[in-house]
């Protein structure tokens, strides 16, 4: 009697085991399937455009006017690169210094406080940054910064977007860099300080080098984030498809191109295809960056090992 209930219990458990394995296996393959499906859909939907126009010509043409069937992506590409490079130039030093402060200088309650501030900052939706920038950064740039260098601007434009995007990605880069700095063994610090190096020399020649791979990939991931940012640029860039001639000029980035043209032109198949192609470009670039970060991290780790 006891034996029979026992075996039926075992049978039930094994059945659950088998069913759950099936389900979990499916879930494991789901990640790959999702990736393949996204790539396939984007490529498939870009084909109508690619079969009709040459890629090189589209990427180098400055003329973007979907209603006239001219698809030049150059202005948006230039705008995206401007924004990405500028915000990384502004954001990276601050992020690095703050990460060093949190990992090496701050102690006790200050440390908990500052690092939870950073966590909060990283969780704030970017649309809120955009909204606050509309009342703070836009007047600042339009009324003070632009006149100060002798140019007139409304405040909407490349510089404003870069500034706000720098603020948006900084916490993200900080938390990744802090992670790799804190993963370093204390012996590294002790040895360096023990042979007479100052704290700054320890940080510069030992810690930054040992944590280098992690920090590099943090910066590259941050770059990828700015590259694909949509909402903040759409709110602040001014939305004119032209190659920006100054930092204060309005422009367009690849994601904002999608936002500003999707609504009205969704019904025209070729425009739709062009905008999906923009999505494909974004995906490819961000993935290349991701991949680059991975390879670089592996390389540097071998070179700067401790």
């Amino acid at each position: 009697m006891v034996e029979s209930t026992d075996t039926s219990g075992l049978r039930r458990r094994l059945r659950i085991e088998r069913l759950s394995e099936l389900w979990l296996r499916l879930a494991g393959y789901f990640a790959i399937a999702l990736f393949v499906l996204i790539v396939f859909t984007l490529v498939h939907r870009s084909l109508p455009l690619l079969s009709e126009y040459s890629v090189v010509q589209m990427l180098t043409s400055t003329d973007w006017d979907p209603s006239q069937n001219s698809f030049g992506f150059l202005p948006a590409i230039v705008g995206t690169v401007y924004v990405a490079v500028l915000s990384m130039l502004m954001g990276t030093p601050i992020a690095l210094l703050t990460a060093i402060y949190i990992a090496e200088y701050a102690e006790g309650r200050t440390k908990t406080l500052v690092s939870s501030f950073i966590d909060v900052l990283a969780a704030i939706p970017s649309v809120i940054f955009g909204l606050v920038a509309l009342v703070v950064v836009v007047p600042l740039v339009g009324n003070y910064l632009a006149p100060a260098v002798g140019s007139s601007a409304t405040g909407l434009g490349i510089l404003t977007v870069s500034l706000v995007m720098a603020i948006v990605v900084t916490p993200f880069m900080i938390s990744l860099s802090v992670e790799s700095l804190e993963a370093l063994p204390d012996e590294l610090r002790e040895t360096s300080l023990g042979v007479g190096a100052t704290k700054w020399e320890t940080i510069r020649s030992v810690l930054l080098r040992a944590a280098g791979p992690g920090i590099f990939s943090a910066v590259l991931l941050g770059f990828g984030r700015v590259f694909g940012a949509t909402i903040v640029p759409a709110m602040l860039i001014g939305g004119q498809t032209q190659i920006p001639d100054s930092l204060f000029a309005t422009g367009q980035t690849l994601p904002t191109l999608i936002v500003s043209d999707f609504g009205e032109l969704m019904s025209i198949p070729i425009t739709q295809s062009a905008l999906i192609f923009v999505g494909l470009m974004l995906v490819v670039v961000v993935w290349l960056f991701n991949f680059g970060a991975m390879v670089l991290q592996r390389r540097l780790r071998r070179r700067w090992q401790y």
Partner: protein
Amino acid sequence: MDRYAKQRAFGVLARAAAGLVVFVMAVVIGVTIFRGGRVLLADPSIVISPPGSRYALEGTGGFFHAVLGSALIVGPATVVSMVLALSTATYLQSDYSSERFSDAVNMFLNVLWATPPIVYGVFVLTIVIAVGARTSLFFGIIAISVFQYPIMTRYIDEALRSAPDTVRESTYGLGATRFETAKMTARAALPGIVAGIIMGFARGIGDAATVLFTAGRSTNMPNGLFEPATTLPVLIFDNSMSFNEEVRAHAYAASFVLIVVVLGLIVVSRLLAGRFAQYVPGGRHA
């Protein structure tokens, strides 16, 4: 400048940078709370009143449609992606899959994790067009769950990985099946899993780019699964560019609501993580 002066200078610089970051955050939260709070204090009812017929133009009524839309889109989406993420992360543990397979899946997950949200939006929209449907609450849910899935999987995978090996070894030692062991491991990693799910929820509720084209950007109350809806971030995005003072004011009120929700979620995640620490071997007992 001698080396000690350099050391001092660098210390000052690092502190100044941290101060700047904290200051910027105080400005962002302060401005949102202040401007949004002013609008809400003047008329708190706009949060729970449905929009009027001329909402987009004159801001008649309130933005309850967006509050409801956010809840109805992000809530179900979180459940869907939670189940998927938990399953994928469990599968990635070495008990089920080979090391090589889980490395490969992790690579795809990293790539998905870094994919811009707008791409998910475009992806779901092409599906909408392919099946001949129109943008609706349902597709908003799909878009947000696709967006949250890699984020949650990454957090949960990390949490499961950091669960002590002794849990696994002792449950196997008692004759448990893999699934039973996986359940015990998940329990030991519960604080991390809960934190991951809440962070995914917070990211989902704050994202506008994925739902911008998929949920329908409607200015009416959502009245069905396959009817257009909107969410708070999309409402903020649309309203902030309005020419009408009243409509713009609603954007600030909505961002007040959104920031309170996100900050609240972070607090809840900290509290829950502390509470669930009792299941972690060697963790704090509640």
